[in-house]
């Protein structure tokens, strides 16, 4: 796995956006962004409506994922190129889903919607019509998804990377600073977790930093690349961004995203919590 297998740039998208077998997908929490303008030919996936279970706190199951992709006209052998707002948080989260359900050929547009917009590239409102497909997903790949008991067991034993902002890590904020702060849960972080905010892996325009810069970033934070790693944030999308860095860009094995993240951990009864800025 190398960077060119998993990341494409704007020039690549412009050269291939009409090619058969290439499907552009915009993934956002705020899908009004897509409605106002998107890359020509891109279909949309709504992070909440399409990717979350409407009843249980979990994400869409295998049958639901199959139905979603079939409806969007995505086939098993298509190359899926994901992009979105928030520096690709939700696109990275969707990327992780595609991998969980066994889709081989999936890539991220480096810089996502932000770089595309800042570079004043074409956005259209025309929604493409794609014929429905018949998508078959694999069983979930549990090697890239962590559950809460595994996180508790990883305290002091594995790399735990908390990718939220320093104020959230320390317990001073319970949500990112562009959201209201009320939450029925405790603040803080999983003991022994290192705080490496997702944003440190990205340039200001949303593109990923170089492999060398990324290696140096995590090494400096005390991450042991010889040990298994679990990344978490608040609801699992920022940590999907960091999972992408570790697993897809740096080629690390045994890297999991804990999608329950702080909204689950910080509400559990009896688990240890550490406050403050950490060591």
């Amino acid at each position, binding site marked *: 796995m190398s960077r060119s297998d998993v990341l494409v740039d704007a020039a690549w998208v412009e050269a291939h956006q009409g090619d058969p077998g290439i499907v552009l997908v915009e993934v*956002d929490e705020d899908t009004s962004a897509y409605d106002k303008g998107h890359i020509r030919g891109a279909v949309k996936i709504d992070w909440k409506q399409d990717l979350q279970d409407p009843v249980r706190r979990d994400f869409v199951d295998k049958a639901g994922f199959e139905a979603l992709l079939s409806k969007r006209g995505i086939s098993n052998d298509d190359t899926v190129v994901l992009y979105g707002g928030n*520096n690709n948080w939700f696109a990275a989260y969707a990327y992780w889903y595609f991998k969980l359900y066994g889709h081989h050929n999936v890539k991220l547009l480096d810089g996502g919607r932000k770089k595309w*917009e800042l570079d004043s590239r074409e956005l259209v409102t025309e929604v493409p019509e794609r014929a429905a497909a018949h998508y078959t997903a694999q069983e979930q790949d549990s090697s890239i998804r962590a559950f809460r008991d595994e996180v508790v067991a990883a305290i002091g034993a594995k790399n735990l990377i908390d990718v939220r902002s320093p104020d959230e890590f320390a317990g001073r904020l319970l949500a990112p600073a*562009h959201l*209201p702060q009320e939450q029925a849960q405790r603040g803080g972080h999983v003991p022994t977790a290192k705080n490496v*905010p997702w944003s440190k892996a990205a340039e200001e325009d949303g593109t990923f930093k170089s492999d060398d810069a990324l290696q140096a970033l995590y090494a400096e934070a005390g991450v042991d690349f010889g040990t298994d790693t679990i990344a978490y*944030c608040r*609801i699992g999308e920022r940590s999907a961004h960091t999972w992408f860095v570790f697993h897809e860009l740096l080629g690390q094995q045994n890297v999991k995203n804990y999608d329950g993240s702080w909204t689950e951990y910080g509400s559990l009864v009896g688990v240890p919590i550490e406050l403050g800025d950490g060591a």
Partner: protein
Amino acid sequence: MSGTQAVADGCGAPADSALVTEAGNQAVVQGTVTQAGAPVSTGYARLLNSGGEFVAEVPLGSDGAFQFFAAPGDWTLRVLAPGGIRAEQGVTAAIGKISRVDVVV
């Protein structure tokens, strides 16, 4: 634009909606970005802490507006917009207060 109660369980870009008019128990930072008197509707507002570290980012609303729910303290607001536009302004946030920071680029 701006975060509202309705999106409090998400981490992402909030829905396009009015800015809050009451701070409640939040430390609100909000403002608009304009160029020659007109709102800049394509662009991003980034909130940096007193050490210059990135903390949060939102896309500008169609009216050039942005909003953050910060912790109390001093912050830097940085605006990025197409055409290589960058602008910065300092702002101090406090609980129970809406701190305005209007940026002209």
